[in-house]
């Protein structure tokens, strides 16, 4: 059990990183990574939402959809769950952590359409994970997302002062460096854990 969880965690964080190996959640990854602080906040929000979404979606899938023979409604029901959850997180942050709320700006509602969140709950079903495995996969998937976005934000902060050809200015140098960071993560992809 423990080794299984460890394998899932390492897989979600490194080898099957949501951004660099599965290419899910690229929109906030590029949009919200210009500062490390904002990136870390966005990462935390995604960890929170992904963990919670995994738990709630697993319960809904196992105790409502599958017994009723409505497994084909998974995608629809999960979108409903995620959308409500993000609304909830937004209200919670607005009340409790206003600084983070204003730092995330328009990116928080964007988690609703963050495919990494929908991806993780659908992968939970696909991989037949139990409740604990699902939550672990959700949280570590979010941590992998956070690792990727914080790493990339640090790279982008250094790019600000780098001397690169003028024609790459702005978004193009950002995409090029995203590709390079992704290449570095490809190094993990051959690893087989346990």
């Amino acid at each position, binding site marked *: 059990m423990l080794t299984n969880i460890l394998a899932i965690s390492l897989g979600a964080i490194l080898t099957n990183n949501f951004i660099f190996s599965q290419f899910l959640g690229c929109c906030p990854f590029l949009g919200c990574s210009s500062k490390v602080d904002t990136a870390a906040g966005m990462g935390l929000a995604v960890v929170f939402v992904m963990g919670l979404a995994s738990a709630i979606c697993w319960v*809904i899938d196992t105790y*409502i*959809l599958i017994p*009723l*023979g*409505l497994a084909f*409604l998974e995608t*629809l*029901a999960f979108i*409903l*769950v995620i959308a*409500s959850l993000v*609304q*909830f997180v937004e*209200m*919670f942050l*607005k*009340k*409790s952590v*206003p600084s983070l709320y204003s730092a995330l700006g328009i990116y928080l509602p964007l988690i609703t359409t963050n495919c990494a969140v929908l991806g993780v709950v659908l992968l939970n079903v696909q991989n037949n994970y139990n409740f604990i495995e699902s939550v672990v996969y959700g949280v570590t998937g979010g941590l992998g997302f956070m690792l990727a976005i914080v790493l990339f934000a640090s790279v982008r902060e250094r790019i600000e002062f780098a001397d690169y050809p003028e024609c790459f200015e702005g978004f193009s140098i950002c995409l090029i460096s995203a590709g390079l960071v992704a290449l570095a993560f490809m190094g993990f992809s051959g690893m087989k854990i346990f």
Partner: protein
Amino acid sequence: MITILKSILVLGILGAVFGAVLAFAARIFHVEVDPREAAVREALAGANCGGCGYPGCDGYAKAVAAGEAPCNKCVAGGAATAAKVAEIMGVSNDGAEKMVAFVPCSGSNEAAELRFNYTGPEDCRAAMLFGGKSSKMCTFACIGLGNCAKACKFDAMHIENGVAKVDRYNCVGCGACVDACPKSIVKLIPESQKIMPACRNMDKGAQVMKICKVGCIGCMKCQRECPADAITVVNNLAQVDTSKCIQCGHCADICPRHIITYFGK
């Protein structure tokens, strides 16, 4: 049939439950928003031009409601909006001076000598990559490929005959063109200022004569004849001191190069 009914029922119940939870959470996590913020936001022009220096109209409204920003920063709305915002905030309106964009260059295609024929992309920055910072002989000149016109959201900036011209009626003074000009030629001047020399060439007179028919040669005529001593020639270029200028328009009449623009007419 039963599957369809079940699907509708399950999704309906799920949606209702989540809706109820959200409604409940909205009560618990309710945040008091300054009602003046919404009122200020309503009063603003809503162009999201960024002329106030805040991120969009929402950002400015928030700053005003928090008392961090003056009431007269909405350039697109002008004096009327400033008065409305001041009324909402209950402070006196200290009268915003309306600014308009001004292009201090008159070097149209006929007047300015060309260095080479530029046929590249229609973009001032692209043209600047070639030597001399312009296809015109004058290194100070407006390139005239219209980055400012593209940046203008109010149809107030047009390229006429190779040089940017401001439509003062449409201009709201948001400063988008100032930021868009790669040569930092465009500037904002108070609308009440009717006199401005439309040249920024600092070369010596003889050199200017060779390259532009409408360049300031620094002849000092305006400086000598100005009744208010408002014009001085610095670095071979006439400059108006807006605090002293009495807007008489005499300099515009006597300028031998006809480059001092008088908007009063």
